[in-house]
Structures are given as structure tokens and as C-alpha cells.
């Protein structure tokens, strides 16, 4: 089901990013228009240009957040070297940030307290209720988001336990990764570990998903020059090691591997599947699938949607929320997996579609490579039930996540290692 994220046949032919914004606006606006009769049917709908001073109306458009601290590539050129400390690179939110709404016709500055600049980011499409002030600004009184997408029903509420294992951030080859820990995981999944009860659970694992950052590659080795044989092995060793682990799993259980930020894959979203030439061992099994990031798939009738974390990491830089799950919930409500793409998150300049538009609600929505494990159930107004999962980095926490397909319950697999000899 990843076709939507595949860009094999698409080429860079001088296209720009305006199209993807245009398509996104068009998709989500049509959707929002259908919601308006239930929201505020009495209000007229305007374009930015059609605004008249003092007239209450609804406008729908793409938000643009003007950020004081946002780093720009231009400043690299015009930099005056100074001793002034740089801003923290983790978060660029500032109290002076302002939101602007744009549609094909123009832009208008947004005022009022309803719409918080720290919540929204550039690229969101929303409907706003309000009116134009004397100064040419739009005073916002209410906001409407596209809301959770419709969901397919889960038919097999009863039935037996089946588990899907989600793991991310294996970082094979990095200093934080421990081969023993990883071997324990593999042994557990393949049922070679633990007592009867554990082995029984292991036997119920039907799918393993590796959500990004599986190997750690020294980027310093990749700048142009031909490598000495010593460095060649430094580069290929972790990949071989990973292939061995994957092969062990693929021999018994279907496994999906997604590319992540640090993997030998392209940078821009959607990231394309890791090339099979990297995995000569595991790719021989038909249980092995190299997938895109984001990744959309069904196990039985349960729909999974997930990313290797870049979309949420970028939101964390350019907006604020209480925790990872809240960011995740927002992307579903906005109907868009990666609103900050292409503005601050690299993405392919699509001309005819926006693959990040969430058409139907997944049952399980996960992001990889987060700092810690967290999960909760999100319930929508039309009966949608979504299991949100923040998967921690395995190399740092030794934790993988198990989702029970029967009831969407979640628990963790943790492998502590203390070697005392």
C-alpha cells in the first residue's frame, strides 16, 4: 500500500514547491467546505481577497508562520561574524511569531488570541471565522481543522492474540548500540528466549516493523574520494551486521524495514525503500520487505500508518506541545502527516498529489526514533479509535513495542543488559 509514497518514476524537471501547497490547499479545503454547514452555516465564505472590513466571514487557506528565530540559508551568506550566542537549535519558537493565512488570492495577517502561533505551523490548512479589521488584519474568532479522517471498522474484535512488533533506532554500528541487546531482541522474536509463556507470546508475533535509523554510517567517509579498503569496511560492516539480524528474523516472520534520517537513503520525504543491494542476505526471503517512510500497511484488517520520526521531530522544532503524542494527534486532526514539508522538512516537489494527506484513519499510528515510549488511544467524534505509539530508540532504551491486533493493546519488550563477568 506504499505506492502513494513511491517516487521512482518522478523526476526533477524544474518544478517548484508551489504545486504541492496548491494541491494540499485544494484537497483539505474541499474537505473543510463539506464541514462548514455543520459548523457555522450562517456565515459566508470568502477568499482572502474578498474580505471586507468589519464583515464576519469564514476564510480557508494555508497558514504561514513568520518566525523570528527560524534559521535561513541566506544568513549563511550575509553573516556578520559575531560573538553573540546562537539560539538553541532544538526549538525556534518565539513569543513574537505571527501567523498569516494565504490562499491563491493573497495573504492576510492574523490577529486575536484564538489561534496560537505556538501550536500551528507553516503548511496547515484551516478554516477561520472572524473579520477584517481596519488595519487590514483578520481578527480570528474561531478555528476549524479538517478533523480525524473516517475509519474502516475493525471487524475481528474477538479472536486470538496476534502481535506486531515495532522497533526503531537500532543504530547498528554506533557507539550506543550493543550487539548483544539486539541479539536478545532477535532471539526473543524468533522464540529462542524465555520461558514457555514468553515463547507462546513470541509465537503470536505476526509482523515486525523496523521504523528507521537502523544503521549508523559515518558521513565523513562519504565525501567524494575513493575509500581505502580499511574505510570501506568501516562503512559496510554495520550494514552487513544489520543484514545478519534481519535475516534471522526474516527466516521466520515477515519483516518490514523503513528508512530513517540516518539510513543510507535519500533525505527528502517520502524516503524511498532502502536498496536491496544493501541486504543480500535478508532480501532473499519473501518475508522481507523494504518499505518507504512513511509506511502504510494492513496486518489482517488492522491499518498501520507510521513514520521514522522526521515529521514529528520537525514539528517539535517549530511548534510546541505537551508530549510527542499530542504532536501526533495534531497531524491526524490536520489530516496531514507532515505539514512542515516542504517549508522546513525536506520533501519531493510533487506536482499532482500530496501523499502526506491522510485519507483514511489508521488504527495504529506510530512514529519512530523518539526519546521515550508513550502510547494512548485517540477517539474521534465519529467513533474512530486510533492507537498512537511513540517508539523509542532501541539503541538507547533497549525497548521495542508490541501491539496486540486483537484489542490494540500495547506493551513493551525491554532488554536490559548488565554484563558482569
Amino acid at each position, binding site marked *: 500500500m506504499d505506492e502513494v509514497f513511491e517516487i521512482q518514476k518522478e*523526476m526533477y524537471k524544474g518544478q517548484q514547491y508551489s504545486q504541492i501547497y496548491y494541491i494540499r490547499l485544494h484537497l483539505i479545503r474541499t474537505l473543510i467546505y463539506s464541514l462548514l454547514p455543520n459548523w457555522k452555516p450562517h456565515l459566508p465564505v470568502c477568499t482572502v481577497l474578498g474580505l471586507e472590513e468589519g464583515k464576519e466571514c469564514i476564510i480557508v487557506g*494555508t497558514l504561514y508562520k513568520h518566525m523570528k528565530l527560524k534559521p535561513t*540559508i541566506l544568513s549563511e551568506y550575509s553573516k556578520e561574524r559575531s560573538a553573540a550566542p546562537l539560539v538553541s537549535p532544538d526549538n525556534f519558537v518565539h513569543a513574537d511569531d505571527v501567523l498569516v493565512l494565504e490562499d491563491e488570492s493573497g495573504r492576510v495577517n492574523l490577529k486575536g488570541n484564538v489561534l496560537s502561533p505556538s501550536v500551528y505551523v507553516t503548511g496547515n490548512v484551516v478554516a477561520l471565522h472572524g473579520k477584517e479589521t481596519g488595519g487590514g488584519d483578520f481578527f480570528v474568532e474561531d478555528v476549524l481543522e479538517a478533523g480525524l479522517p473516517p475509519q474502516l471498522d475493525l471487524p475481528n474484535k474477538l479472536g486470538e492474540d496476534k502481535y506486531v512488533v515495532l522497533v526503531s533506532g537500532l543504530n547498528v554500528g554506533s557507539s550506543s548500540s550493543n550487539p548483544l541487546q539486539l541479539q536478545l531482541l532477535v532471539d526473543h522474536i524468533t522464540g529462542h528466549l524465555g520461558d514457555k509463556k514468553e515463547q507462546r507470546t513470541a509465537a503470536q508475533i505476526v509482523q515486525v516493523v523496523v521504523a528507521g535509523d537502523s544503521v549508523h554510517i559515518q558521513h565523513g567517509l562519504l565525501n567524494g574520494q575513493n575509500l581505502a579498503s580499511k574505510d570501506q569496511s568501516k562503512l559496510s560492516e554495520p550494514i552487513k551486521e544489520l543484514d545478519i539480524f534481519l535475516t534471522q528474523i526474516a527466516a521466520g516472520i515477515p519483516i518490514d524495514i523503513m528508512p530513517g534520517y540516518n539510513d543510507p537513503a535519500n533525505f527528502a520525504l517520502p524516503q524511498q525503500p532502502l536498496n536491496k543491494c544493501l541486504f543480500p542476505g535478508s532480501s532473499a526471503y519473501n518475508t522481507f520487505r523494504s518499505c518507504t517512510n512513511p509506511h502504510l500497511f494492513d496486518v489482517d484488517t488492522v491499518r498501520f500508518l507510521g513514520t521514522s520520526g522526521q515529521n514529528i521531530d520537525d514539528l517539535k522544532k517549530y511548534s510546541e506541545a505537551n508530549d510527542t503524542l499530542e504532536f501526533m494527534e495534531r497531524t491526524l486532526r490536520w489530516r496531514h502527516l507532515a505539514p512542515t514539508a516542504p517549508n522546513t522538512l525536506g520533501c519531493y516537489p510533487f506536482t499532482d498529489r500530496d501523499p502526506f494527506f491522510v485519507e483514511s484513519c489508521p488504527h495504529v499510528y506510530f512514529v519512530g526514533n523518539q526519546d521515550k515510549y508513550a502510547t494512548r488511544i485517540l477517539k474521534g467524534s465519529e467513533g474512530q479509535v486510533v492507537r498512537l505509539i511513540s517508539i523509542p530508540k532501541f539503541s538507547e532504551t533497549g525497548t521495542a513495542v508490541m501491539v496486540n491486533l486483537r484489542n490494540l493493546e500495547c506493551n513493551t519488550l525491554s532488554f536490559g543488559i548488565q554484563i558482569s563477568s
Partner: protein
Amino acid sequence: MNNKGNNGRKRPAQQQPAPPQPSKHVATTEIEDEYMDEDVFIEQNLVDEDELILRDMEDREALANRLEKWKRPPLSKAYHSHSQNIVFQQLEIDYVIGESHKGLIPNSSGSAAIIRIFGVTKEGNSVCCNVHGFEPYFYISCPPGMGPDDISRFHQILEGRMREANKSNKFSVPKFILRVELVQRKSIMYYQQHSSQPFLKIVVALPTMVASCRGILDKGIQIDGLGMKSFMTYESNVLFVLRFMIDCNIVGGNWIEVPAHKYKKSAKSLSYSQFEFDCLYSELISHVPEGEFSKMAPFRILSFDIECAGRKGLFPDAKYDPVIQIANLVTLQGEEQPFVRNVMTLKSCSPIVGVDVMSFDSEREVLLAWRDFIREIDPDIIIGYNICKFDLPYLIERAETLKIAEFPILGRIRNSRTRVKDTTFSSRQYGTRESKEVTLEGRVQFDLLQAMQRDYKLSSYSLNSVSAHFLNEQKEDVHHSIISDLQNGNPETRRRLAVYCLKDAYLPQRLLDKLMYIYNYVEMARVTGVPMSFLLSRGQSIKVLSQLLRKAKQKDLVLPNVKQAGSEQGTYEGATVLEARAGFYEKPIATLDFASLYPSIMMAYNLCYCTLVTPEDVRKFNLPQECVNKTPSGEIFVKSDLQKGILPEILEELLAARRRAKADLKEAKDPLVKAVLDGRQLALKISANSVYGFTGATIGQLPCLEISSSVTSYGRQMIEHTKRLVEDKFTTLGGYEHNAEVIYGDTDSVMVQFGVPTVDEAMKLGREAADYISGTFIKPIKLEFEKVYFPYLLISKKRYAGLYWTNPDKFDKMDTKGIETVRRDNCLLVKNLVTECLHKILIDRDIPGAVQYVKNTISDLLMNRMDLSLLVITKGLTKTGEDYEVKAAHVELAERMRKRDAATAPNVGDRVPYVIIKAAKGAKAYEKSEDPIYVLENNIPIDPQYYLENQISKPLLRIFEPILKNASRELLHGSHTRAISISTPSTGGIMKFAKKQLSCVGCKALISNKDQTLCSHCKGREAELYCKTVDNVSELEKLFGRLWTQCQECQGSLHQDVLCTSRDCPIFYRRKKAQKDMAEAKVQLERWNF
């Protein structure tokens, strides 16, 4: 004479074609060119107002209603009944010839000069004040033995000669010479022992007659009993308006009050000002700009920009290319946001938030709407970028082409046509500039481009780079070949253009605010006493002359009108510079500065025109030694107890005023008051410094090289004196820890190494030395200690860099002089390299790091890894190829580009960016230039050797020679220069015959099978090689995204394609390159998906 023609001014030659009905007007007279040094008067420029109402009344009304709300506030009724004092700030003063006002001057007749003062009241009402009764005059020295009878005979003879010379003059004046009066005055030139002498003040009827009368007197006239005699004239070259301002104590931009009942509302209003009135010049009260009167009236400032649809490949020409949009912003002085924003477009245009879009079907309507807009808004100041040379002349010429005779009435005078005239502005300080002069009576034009060129040294003066420099933002730049496409599109594309046009109109206003131009220029006008319009259109000397005349008038001195001697008087020795001891100083260097050195010298030694004693007079007067100063250049000046000089007095006042302004500035709280005061202190400083230059300007108004050479000779002496004292006093013998050493001395500063290791100690010694040495000078010459450089890299005379400390805890900045950081004919690489090296050397104190950085950069250059935008060199194309005598790289390139594609080739006036490419052996330098875009698209190899040798080596060696022993060998010839990589061009030459074949990604061996990526040999390295390819793609994707979203940000829209082609923008080439590299890298990556 015809009554209708009493306004407007005369310009020689190049008149616009006469409007219809010439029979109503009196023919013009030919006047000899030499008399044309002042403005006079013409009727040709007038149009009959009745003819103007040609336009469809309904259209006009609709437009008028739209403009209505922007009218100025209503006028107080009390003005009409003459019962209220009129107080206004004047901005522009000119004069016209008209019938003298019978009501105010009952016994006058014929034509007279009427001064017009345009201004704005506190309430924002525009007024036009016609001042009557002020008469032009000048002086001649009275020949000895001339009695009252002789004077009246002289008067008659002169009258007769004038009548003869002005036979063809159309003005009906009963008398040419109104009066000849005997007055007591003194010439400003040379010290004189007597207190005053008889002079004749000759009052003439009209301002132009001053020049013609001067001509007659210069040549000499026959006087009975005295024979043929020629006369030296005095103050006969003072512009009439300036004469008036001086005599009435009016300074540029000050407030003027006309008491109630002393003025009369003009019977027939000739101007578009809200209130026009007549009064006598003696009734004007001129307020000194202090307290309440230092404020600014709420002027209306219009900032505008036009777009025209050019033809492909040609610069817009008013004969063919229509004006398609005019964007306007009007701001009230002192307010932050414009209160009017509109754009007038040809053909429909989608609306823009917050902007009044007015669309018209014909160009004629656009132009006329703009005229109506100007009239209704009634701006006091019109600003823009390059409006004087482009926008305004273009509009006027376009209207002429379209035969819209009623268009160019943009000034404040009813029916007076706006005219364009070519001028050359030439000044020693600013060089020669060709320009166009557009007359807009009553409105001040302020072209930001001219102001920028005057006040700042920048590498480029395009609006884009100026706003990047001052406002820190890049401006979207739409190439003029796209403009026509946008215009011919739909209302949306025209809206796009309008947004762009509005931004261009807004930037000048933002620059004006940011640089406080209004405050600074008004203050400069107030300090120097000239009208604001002089500041931009004339050089420095008029400002000093104005002050000199004002001061001289108080003392009954008169200035001779020296015949322009040209430069034959020779030059004199300039300022001295002490030999620089080049080196890298790692001990603090204290800098001792003379505060306002040249003004102080003039004050200390009483140097002035009127204190200079000629060599003959030295013997004649036999002055005692103690009363005179002999300057090091050998001139004699008397001391101030015998005769106080005027220049020293002017300088004292200026500097005292500056001290006051600075003190007030500290006290001031209100930001607007602060702005005024800061502008004032700056103006005062500049004025004080320009006095010296005035005396040295050999083609100036009143050159006196004796003064200027004395000033520099004193300056030299003081620098030497300081050096001697420092090196004598601060020695180990004198009880100090180290021997002080003067390492360098500039015009007005001396750099001393006291030998102490810390900044703090150097500061203490610096202060001590400054106080000690100041004590040996005559007041007010003062040596000040200001700053310490530590470390300090002294390269040679006028070239150095160092960290600048004013307090011992933290350095203020890195200061560089004469080092390639901003030269415009260097590529960006040089600037970056030099800046980075200095940063590493001075701030990080990491010399090996700097060396390594240079080596890496050179290696990158040779290995073809350099970002192309860093290598782009830009030069302005000022004329076409044939006009250049020597072949130049950028000119040749422009020619070649024209052959390739005329539409995008640079035109005269554009800046041509180019890179130097590898060419056949023996190719001339000018043949090696190429368009960066073309280079990118065709993979043309650049010539790294050229950049190494001609661009970076000299500046680098300069920096490193004082630091490294074998700088050249170490930096330019090390092992890092051995590896070279050159890209293969994809067009031209031998590549035409080449056949493309697949090769192994790993080892470049040819492979036959199309489906393979690697040869069998490299198969084992698959993972590694794949990682490399994909890593390359991922780096490019990162860059692609960042560059293109940056451009979206600049253009301020997400949903529209980026059109900008600003070659001044540093990321333009990178963006293009990223786009192309991306496509290629993607194809490479595809090969792995077998």
C-alpha cells in the same frame, strides 16, 4: 505681456514641444548662454487649463471619489479672513518673474521677481507664499574719487549698456538698474588695516540681469573722466533664492511665520497648494530651528515605482514601451505606516489586501489617473529609487509619445509643465554623474539611489543589494523580460506584478526611515542654510558658501567673484602619513587621534581669507612678529587679536553647536527629538569638515590655497611632533617599563606601541600621552585617546586590521581598513576568505588554523568543489561594445549573450555577472568570461588558476606576509595545490564527436550491459558505492529544499512559483545549480534500481 504666462521657469534649449495655441504666448527670446546661470522664465511650458478637461467626466468623477478621502485636512477659516498668523515649515523656495504686486508695492511697475515659498503648516495644510519686493543686487568696489554725481552718471551709462544688451528681452521693465547706492563694506580677501571702503551696491530689476550686468562690468565700461574701466564684482554669483534666504535669515527647512493681516490671499490662485497668499519680504519672521520650531511638519511623502513592458532584449524605451503599472505609497512624516497604498494598472488586476487597486483600459488613463492622484494627494516630497533618472523622465516622455499634453502637470503650479533636462553633476568629492533633472515646482524630489551613491560606499547600488545591506532582506527581482509576460497573462499574473511593484515602492520609504534621511537632510539644510533640494543636486561648496555669506553679511564683508581660474593654480602637498612598520603586533597598540584636526588647526592659527597677509602687505604693514603666525608652508596670517577670522568663527559656532546638540541628545527622551538632534550633530560635523575642502577646491567658489596648504602643513607638523614627543617621553630612561614606538601615523591619528602586554595598561598610557601632548598644542587642537588595537595587523599605509577595544574587558569589533572586504570587482570568495582569515587570526588567534583554512579553500577551488556563486564577478555595463576602447570581459560577454539569446542578454545599465572559464591556450583574458548560468547548464570548467592568481593571491599575501616567513610558497604552492579536477563540458569543442557510454559507478570502467551499475570487479563494493550515491542525493535534496523554500519565503507566497532572477542574490546560482544537480543525481540513483 500676456498675463497667463506668469509662472514657470526658463530652461535653455531642449524644450518640450509647445502646447497648442501658441499664438496666445509671447515668443521666447534667445539669451546668451553665459547669462543663464540662474533660473528664469518661460511660457512654453504652460498649458491652458480649459483644455485639460478633455477626459470623460464620469471617469474622472469616479476616480475623484476614490481619491477624495486622502485629501489634506481642511483649511482653517481664519486664514481666509487674514486674522490668523500663518506658521509653516518651508521645504522648497524658488522664484518666478511676474507683474509686481500693485497692492503691496504701490509705486512699482513692470516685471519683478516673486519668491515662492512652499511649505506645510503644523496642521498639515499646504501653503504657497508669494514674497514680493525683494530685489536682486550685487556690489562693485567704488573707484576712488567717485562722488555722488559720478555715481548717477555711472548709473545712466550702465543703464544704457544694459538696455543695449537686453534689447531682445521680452520683459517689460521700466528700468534695468533700479538703484546704485554708495555703501561702506570691506572685501573678505586679505588682511586689511582700514576698517571699510566705499562700495557700490547695484540693484537690478530682475535676477538674470545680475549676470548680464556683471558681464558688462567685467569687460569694462567707458566713464567720463575715468576712462575705460573694468570692475571686480562682489557677490554677483549668489543665486537669487540663496540671496533672499541669507538676507531674511531663512535657513533650509525652517519655520516661517507671517503675522495676521500682513498677508493677502492671492486673487488668482496659481498653485495647487491649499492656501496661496502674497506678502512683503520684510514681513516674514524666520524662526531659528530650536524648541518648538525644531520639529517637523507632517509632510506628505510619496514613494512610487513604475513598471513598463519592455520588448525582449531591449531596455525599456519610452517611445515604444508602455507604462503598465504605477505603485504609490504615501506616508506622513513621523508616522510609521503609509496611509495610502495603491497601484494603478493597465488592464484588470486581482485585488490585493490592504491596497487600493485601480485598473484602467488604456495607458492614457493610467497616466492621467496618476496625475490626478498627485494633485489630490499633494505630496511635499517625492521619493523612489532612481526616479530622477528613470521613472519620472520615462513617464513624461511616454506621455509625450502618446500625445497626452495634459499629463505632465505634476508640480504645484497650475498649468506648468513638468520638464526633463539632462544635467551633469560634477563634484570633486562625488565625481561626475550624468543625470536628468525633472522640474516639479514646489515638491522636493529625493532619489534614494542618488543619496546612496553620495553617502555610502557599497559594492553594488541595486535596490536589491542596498536593501539587503541596510534592511537585511533580499528583494525579489523579476527580470524585465518576464514583466511583459506577466502583463500579457491574466488578472492574477498582473496582480503578481503589482505586488512586486508595490514592494519596490515600499523599499525606498523603508530605507528613508531606516537611515533617517529626512531628519539628516533637513538638519543639514538648517545648519548650512541652503534649501533641501540643493543638498542632493549640488556639491559641498554651496553649503560652505552659504555659511560664509551669512557670516560675512553680519560683518559687512563682501565676497569677491573670483574668475574661475581652473586648476592652473596647482596643487599643494597633502596630508602626511608616517611610514608604516608592517607587521603583526601581538601587543596592544594605542591610537591617539586628533579630534577634528583640520577645523582645530584653522581655529588655533586663525586661518581665514581675511587674516591672510599678502607678501607685499607683509612689507607694507610691517606687522610685529608677535601679531602674526607664519605657517610651515610659509604663509603669514594675523592673529585673532588683530583680526578675528570668519572661517574660525564659523567653525567655532559649528563645533559649539555640535557639542550642544550632543549634550541635548543625551538628555532627550522622545525618539523623534533624538532623531532630529542626532541628524543635527552629524550635519554639523560634516559641515565643519567641509570648510577646509572649500578653500582647497581650485574650481570652487572662492579657493584660497594659502589656507588649505597651511592647514595640511600644520597637520604634518603635528603628527611629527606627536611622534617625537611620544618616543622621547615614554622610554625606559624616563621611568617607563618599555620604550614606546610609533608604528604608524595617518592623517589625524598616531598608533603607538607602548610595549605593555595588556589593553588596560595601554589605555592608561594612551590617556597619559594624549593629555601630555595636548598640553603642548594651541587650543583647541586636542589629541584624544580613543581606542586600542589588539592584536593589530599592519600591512602597509592605509591598510590594516585589528580588534578594536574601547574598554579593557571586551573588544568592540573587528576593524579593517583598505582590505578587500567590499571591493566590487572581486568575487565573493575573496571577501569570504579574507574575512574568515582575519577572524581566525585576530579573534581566534589561530594562525595555523587560518593557514589550513586557506589551503582547504584553494584545494576546493582546484578540485572544482567551489560553490559557483562565490566565483561570480560583476561589472556594470555602461555603454555598448563599440564604445569601449579596450576590450573588457563583461562587455564581450554581453555581446556573446546577445547572440545566443537577445531576450535575456544584459543591456546597458545592467550589471553583468560572469565567471572566468578555462579556454584554449593563449586565449585573451576578455574571451574567458562566461555567463554563470550557461556555465552551470553546460558543465563548463572554470579556470581555477585565474582565481588563484588574479583574485585571491594578492589579498592573501598581503595579510600573511607580515605573519608567515614564506607566505607565497606555503600558501600558494604547497602540496594542497597538486590535485586538480576539471569538469567535462557537455557542449562545444570535441564533445560533439564524443559518444556516451555507461561506465561503472565505482571505477569508471566501461560496461557493456545496460542493466548493470558496476563492473564485475567492483561488485563487492556494492554497499559502499551505493551509500555514496545515495548520500550525494540526500545532501542535494537537503540543499534543494532549503534553497527553494527560502526563495518562497522571500517572495512572500507559498502558492505561486518563484520567478526571481536576482543575480545579486547569493543563493540564485546555488538554487539553479541545486535544481540541475538534483536531476542528475536522481538519474545516477536510478541506475541502482535494476
